[in-house]
């Protein structure tokens, strides 16, 4: 099915002065995971990251690792969850997040084609560095998938410029040095990383890694265009929150983020 193109939709929303909320769910984590995707879309997500589980996720902390293990134990394969996603009627752009070996194993063009067939319009591959990006960049471009790149607090200005020039969809700004996971807000380095990339791009800049609470999300969107929330949501799902619990949490994040927009 066709869904809105990631970058078009996010740019429209930013132009309309809406701050962006991008939650992350692990595909296949539980039987009702698709209902969760639907529920968080209805609760106000602007785009949704869909994690395809990988056995060795080096950019992820313990919560997302646990969800990946659960999903793999349930027999999840990239194709099985993509097929399920294709059946979803949804007006929210979907962004797949996974590791490069799954993409490479399927074949770059074939993998991009599969995403396109099921209506995924963006893709994040955290272990694919700028240096090794060009093959995937071409494969994604051919079928209209936006490949999203990361900028970290450690990234130099020169490197940030090169990354900004080639990222599509949005720019994923890593909010703190570390892997995914919930943190207290003291460690977020949002201001510095966002101001580092602003001069080089008109893309929406969304901050992830360590954004866990409505308060943190609100603080993030004071400087950035959007907040990405992964582990805090996945933990609630691991604890049995289900689609309803997920929707409640996304609702809280949404209100916190929207209050910032109205203040501004």
């Amino acid at each position, binding site marked *: 099915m066709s869904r809105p193109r990631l970058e078009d939709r996010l740019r429209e929303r930013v132009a309309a002065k809406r701050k962006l909320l991008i939650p992350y769910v692990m595909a296949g984590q539980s039987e009702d995971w698709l209902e969760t995707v639907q529920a968080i879309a209805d609760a106000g997500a602007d785009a949704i990251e869909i994690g395809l589980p*990988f*056995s060795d996720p080096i950019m992820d902390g313990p919560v997302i690792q646990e969800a990946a293990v659960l999903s*793999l134990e349930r027999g999840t394969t990239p194709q099985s969850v993509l097929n399920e996603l294709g059946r979803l009627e949804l007006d929210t752009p979907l962004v797949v997040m996974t590791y490069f*070996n799954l993409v490479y*194993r399927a074949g770059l063009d074939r993998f991009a084609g599969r995403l396109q067939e099921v209506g995924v319009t963006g893709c994040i591959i955290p272990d694919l*560095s700028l240096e*090794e990006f060009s093959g995937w960049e071409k494969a994604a471009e051919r079928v209209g998938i936006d490949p999203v790149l990361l900028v*970290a607090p450690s*990234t130099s200005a020169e490197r940030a410029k090169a990354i900004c020039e080639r990222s599509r969809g949005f720019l994923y700004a890593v909010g703190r040095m570390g892997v995914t996971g919930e943190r207290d807000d003291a460690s977020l380095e949002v201001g510095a990383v966002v101001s580092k990339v602003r001069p080089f791009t008109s893309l929406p800049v969304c901050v992830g890694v360590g954004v866990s609470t409505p308060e943190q999300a609100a603080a993030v969107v004071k400087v950035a265009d959007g907040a990405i929330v992964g582990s805090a949501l996945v933990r609630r799902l691991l604890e049995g929150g289900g689609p309803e619990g997920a929707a409640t949490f996304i609702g809280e994040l949404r209100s916190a983020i929207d209050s910032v927009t109205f203040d501004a």
Partner: protein
Amino acid sequence: MSEGSAAPMAEPTKAGWFGDFGGRFAPEPLMPACLQLEEAFRDAWADPAFHEEFEEVLHSFGGRPTPITVCKRLSEELGITLLLKREDLAHTGSHKINNVIGQALLTKRMGKSKMIAETGAGQHGVASATAAALLGLECTVYMGEVDTQRQALNVFRMELLGATVHPVTSGSRTLKDAVNEAMRTWVAQVDDTHYCLGSVMGPHPFPWMVREFQSILGTEARDQSQAILNDVPDYVVACVGGGSNAAGLFSGFAESRSQLIGVEALGGAAIASGIPGVLHGMMSQILQDEQGQILEAHSISAGLDYPGIGPEHAHLASIGRATYATADDDEVLDALERLSNTEGIIPALEPSHALAWIMREAGKKIPKGSTVLLNMSGRGDKDVAQVREILQAKGRFQ
């Protein structure tokens, strides 16, 4: 991907490719650290003062050069001339000391005060803790929880040397997961911490840098075998997990007529059973399923239980410059026992794989009368309790 390097075992391309293997598949937060490390290594490796310090520490502290021993009785029984490069006599009991001294000196040169390392059997962890103690660095070693139980004495050694051992409880709780956890930690602490990777693997510049630090053993072995044989050996043989001892040895003979043979554990044979893929920052031959999920490696030797292999080995295999074979657990035990009682040397389980291949192929793939150099990469002390248990269970010893 880039075109291959000119000569076998030349420097990789600027992006870290050995032919179709290698590269730098690291998350962006780590990329600046990889680039900084490459620059620091290039600078150090071009500096005669760094080489001088590296070699001096390995001489006065590490016990280098290690000798070559010509096996008398076993050579006669096998109908070949068997030479052993005695890395088991280096400080901490294996070749691992070469790499950690290099990386610890580099850590100081970069102005960092902490080192983290992964370990499987514990050899690289003990070596890292040793180098850190020598140079006054803070050291944390990541070790799969399963391995901390299998190698409890090595955990104690590391602690005695002042290191902190962090048991890893994710995934299969073995070496692969220890690497994952060390990389995750490095992402968070990259400002003041160097990741002292233990083998010729990971993102560029690690595979190249570790080979360069280990090439000291290959250079020595080439000069020593020349003096003994008046020639290079016909065969140059080493065990391969990630492949650092083999890379160091092969580098001394890559441009000679010697046949280079790497021996993997049958249950962790990335060249024989793996296919190209990306793990731990590198493109290499990787054990994986149809979807690309990484498989566990299983053998008698924790040091070889790794589902990948250094990218340069994948390259050497693809261009035919080196050949990779396997040995199974039973052959390995036989080899360990036979070297012990014919030559008075108890080898570690890892080099026993390479010896097992030599014993199997002497008079077959290895023609009678050949000269064969084996890298005795580590001593067997760490393995005797495990070997005793297995041999007793087979009714071989009381």
